C-alpha cells in the first residue's frame, strides 16, 4: 500500500480539489503541481495563485490492467475492468497525470478533450482521498 499520510494528502488539496496552480511572477510560467523554484526560469520562488480551469487535451494515455494496478487500485480494476490513465495537457500549459473516468477504455484517444472533476481516488487508514480525474469534455 502506498503510504501518503493524512497531513501530506491534505497539503495538496488545493491542487487535487480545485487545480490551484502557481504563476511565476518573474517569468509568467504556470507551475502545476507547484515547485519551490519555478520550472520555467529555474530562478524565482515568487508565485501568485491561479485557478486553472481543468480543461485540456489527452497528450498520452495507457490502460491499466490487473498486472499494472497498484494495490490500492486493485479492487477498482477488478470491479470495473482496466482503467485509463492519461497525461493531460491543460489549456493553461502545464501537463499533469490523472486517471480518466466516465469513459470506455476503447474510446480514449490522444488529442481528446477532457475536463477535471472531483472523484474518489482511494481510501487509506479509513480516510477517503478525493482528487481530480479527467472526464470526456467534447466541445468544451
Amino acid at each position, binding site marked *: *500500500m*502506498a*503510504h*501518503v499520510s493524512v497531513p*501530506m494528502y491534505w497539503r*495538496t488539496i488545493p491542487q487535487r480539489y480545485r487545480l490551484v496552480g502557481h504563476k511565476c511572477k518573474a517569468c509568467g510560467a504556470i507551475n502545476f*503541481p507547484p515547485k519551490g523554484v519555478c*520550472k520555467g526560469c*529555474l530562478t524565482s520562488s515568487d508565485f501568485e495563485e491561479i485557478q486553472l480551469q481543468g480543461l485540456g487535451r489527452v*497528450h*498520452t*494515455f*495507457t*490502460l*491499466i*490492467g490487473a*498486472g*499494472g*494496478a*497498484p*494495490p490500492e*487500485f*486493485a479492487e*477498482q480494476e477488478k470491479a470495473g475492468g*482496466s*482503467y485509463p*490513465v*492519461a*497525461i493531460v495537457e491543460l489549456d493553461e500549459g*502545464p*501537463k*499533469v*497525470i*490523472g*486517471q480518466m473516468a466516465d469513459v470506455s477504455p476503447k474510446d480514449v484517444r*490522444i488529442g481528446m478533450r477532457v475536463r477535471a472533476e472531483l472523484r474518489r*481516488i*482511494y481510501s487509506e487508514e479509513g480516510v477517503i*482521498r478525493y*482528487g481530480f480525474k479527467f472526464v470526456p469534455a467534447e466541445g468544451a
Partner: protein
Amino acid sequence: MYGGPGGKGYIDKGVIATHSTRAAGPCGGIRCPIAGVPLDGGRTSMRKVAIVGAGQSRYGEFPDKSIKELFFEAYRDMASSVDRNFDPKRIGAAYVGNLGCGGFQLGNLSALVSEFVGLPYIHTMRIENACASGGYALATAAMDVMAGVHDVVLAGGVEKMTDVSGSKGKYWLGVSGDTEYERLAGTTFSGLYALLAQRHMHEFGTKREHLSMVAVKNHKNGALNPKAQFQRETTLEKAMAAPMVAAPLNLFDCCSTTDGASAVLVCSAEAAKSFTDTPIWIEGFGTSSDYLAIHDRAETVALEGTRRAADRAYKMASKGPQDIELAEVHDCFTIAELLAYEDLGFCKKGEAGRYIEEGHPEIGGDRPVNASGGLKAKGHPIGSTGTGQAYEMFHQLRGSVEKPGRQVKDAEVGLLHNVGGSGGTVAVTILGR
C-alpha cells in the same frame, strides 16, 4: 577545490564551481565529474580508474538466500575473478546500491552487508537512486578513486525482492516515480513507461512488433547466460500475444522482480598493476537527474536524463556513440530499450523501431545491446542492476563470458546505461579495454 589556472568561476545550470589557483585539486583539475564540464580547459592527466574484478550472484528467486548471503555470493565471485593478490584488507570503501533494504533494514544496510563479507571497518554507504543505484554506486566509487581518497573500492549492489508479498513489492516498485501524483493516478512503472510508449508510437509510428522484438532478442541472449533469471527463448508471436499489463505494454514487455547481487572491484591505475595485466578502464561516466514525474518533463518521447548523462560520459571519455561497440542498457520495459537506442545516440530520435528491425542490436549486429539478456531476461534486482551490467561488460571486454554464443568478439569499448525509475536518475558508464 578544483585546480587549474586562472581562478575561473564556472557556472553550469545552477551548479557553481569555483576554482582555486592554488595546488591542483584532488581530481587533477580536468573535468568536474558531476557537471561533466571542463574546469580548466586544459588536459592534465587523469587519475585513471580501473575495474580489476567483477562478480555476480545468480539472478532469480531464492527463498533460501538472505540479502546478506546474496551480497556475499557476488563478493566471493568478484574475489575469485581478480587475477592475483586479492586482499580484502586493501578495500577502503564500499558503495552498495540498494532500494528496499530487503524489506527490513532501513538504516545502515551497507554496514551490515560489508561486515558480513569481512569488511567491518571501512567507508561504506548505501547508494540509493532507485534502479540506478548500482550505476551511481559505480560512479561514486570512480569519483572516490579519482579524488585519491581511496585506492581500492568496492562498488556493488544487492536487492532481495521476493521476501515480501506481491502487494508490498508493488509498493516499492511504485514509489520511485512521483508518488503523490503518478502513483495516486493508479500507475506503477508499467503504466508510466506505457505512457511513454503510447506517445512514441503516436509521434513516430513505432509498432507493437518493435517492442516485442526487444523481448525476443533479450530472451535469446538470456538463454545463453547461466546467471540469468530466465534462460528460455521466446517467439515474436508469443511476446505479442501476452496479456496486457498497461496498454500498450503486455507481460512480455515488462521485466520481473528478482533477487540478486553484484560487485566490482574499482581501483587506481597504480593499484591495478598489482591485480592484473588486463584491467578494464572506466573511460568516462556521467549522471543526470530529471523531473520525477513524466508530466513535468519537456518531452514524453525521450529520457532527458539519459541524454545528459550520456553526453557527460562521452565528453569525459572523449568518445561518441560511434565509438561504442556494445552496450548494456536499462530495458526495465521494452520501450525503455528503444528509447535508449535514441537517447544514447545510437540512432536518431524516432528511429528506434527501424534500428532494431535492421538488426543492429543483435549479438551478431554492429552494436550488440544487452548481450547478457538485459533486465528483461537476466533479471532486475533493483540495487544490483547497474553493477551487474558492469560485471557483464567486464567479462565481455576481457573475452571471459561464460558461453561463447554470447561473447562479443574483440570489443574494446562498451557502454552501461542504468536508469532510476522512469528516468528520475540516470548513470552512464563507458568502459574500455
